[in-house]
């Protein structure tokens, strides 16, 4: 089973809008999303995305099964993890790099549970969260694409996720959308 994991932080709302509004309602791969929240309930984020994509968007509920056509969003103050049986778990373990939800936690669980079936996108952000997790996905044989730091609103997070060697794949938002569609159709 294929799975898409996406991480975004500062500046991420607009990037997500561009990225996700281009996906068709029958997009066949479940999407899990961690977006760092400044504050608030996260339902705002879900509502905001809901009006910008034809896919079903909702906050993760513990142990729900991931489904095609859905974007499952990590709730504020919870880590979101993927289990091998295709369900999601939440946790209130300590924040990672001041972040909960954390990209690293989701990405590492996805690498462990789904290995080379994972496609990971790291978008704009001011944190280094996600770099370790992206590396874990690469090591497990998954694909990692990073928003071009030159065009990202805040380049820190994509730059960190490129890895020590800087050898990761860098793409603009429209090419990231193309990669998502390719991945679904492979």
């Amino acid at each position, binding site marked *: 089973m294929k799975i898409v994991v996406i991480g975004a932080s500062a500046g991420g709302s607009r990037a997500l809008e561009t990225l996700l509004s281009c996906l068709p309602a029958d997009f066949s791969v479940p999407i899990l999303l961690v977006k760092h929240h400044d504050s608030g309930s996260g339902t705002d984020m879900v509502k905001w995305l809901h009006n910008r994509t034809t896919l079903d968007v909702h*906050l*993760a*509920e*513990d*142990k*729900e099964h991931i489904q095609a056509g859905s974007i499952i969003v990590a*709730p504020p103050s*919870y*880590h979101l*993890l*993927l*289990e*091998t049986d295709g*369900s999601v*778990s*939440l*946790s*209130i*373990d*300590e924040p*990672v790099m001041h972040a909960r939800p954390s990209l*690293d*936690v989701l990405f*590492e*669980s996805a*690498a*462990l*549970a789904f*290995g080379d079936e994972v496609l990971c996108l790291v978008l704009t952000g001011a944190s280094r969260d996600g770099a*370790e997790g992206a*590396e*874990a996905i690469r*090591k*497990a044989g998954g694909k990692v694409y990073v928003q071009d730091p030159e065009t990202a609103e805040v380049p820190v997070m994509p730059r960190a996720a490129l890895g020590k060697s800087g050898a990761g794949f860098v793409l603009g938002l429209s090419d990231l959308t193309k990669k998502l569609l390719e991945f679904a159709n492979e």
Partner: protein
Amino acid sequence: MTSPVPRSSQDVNNLLEAMTAQYGYDFSGYAPASLNRRIHRHMQSFNIESVENLKQIILKDEQAFADLLRSLSVPVTEMFRDPPFFKYLREQVLPWLATFPFIKIWHAGCATGEEAWSMAIMLHKAGLLSRSQIYATDYNEEALTTARRGIYDSPLLDTWQRNFKESGGEGDLSDYCFQRYGSLRMDRTLQQHITFANHNLVTDHAFGEMNLVLCRNVLIYFSRDLQNRVLDLFKESILPGGLLCLGPRETMRFSSVADSFEPVEHEWKIYRLKQGFQL
């Protein structure tokens, strides 16, 4: 820093079996993703190279097992955590509790006890504490010791005060906790109505005849099977018509006891045990 957790589920299973056999702590029903992460983090901080190695160490060394146990449990809580939830309890649930001659409340998985103390404060404010008994249980003896002592770090007070106000609490929280030597000490008179006890949701039995059970952000660490066991245990522990409060992102929807309960409040996951289900 963190590197990917190796795919070693057999090793992890062996470790869990050893923990059950040697020490009676059964983690096999825990949701694997978080558990793996915690085991791995424990290995990093104790410089242990493999899960197999960890197993050998804890089998020989009881202190090493205690260290692991500490890494595996999550005492993350605060006073009046989720203020709107407590506001709901204060406004909607307390008046209902007030109709009973005696009130029994169980905080299952209470960690370091802040929620149980919060409940005692709320009951005291409502004039109900004198006829209430709160049971606060956890399997983690170290967390329970903290809970029982009722002594916390002073810097927490600001957050607590804010939560307390947001939950609709009147007056000053510091009426109930005293600052001394950089610590906060909970009012002893509250404690007469709280019983802190060791109870493991995985292996222990029901606690009888509760009006209200709170178990928030504990089930997220369990697999669905274990969640079902625990929810069943709650069903046995709650009086017909009594309430169960789960964490805001936890649900009973997938569980085998879902039909026995009806949702009372959707956002805060408060359920009522239907009348006539417990014979």
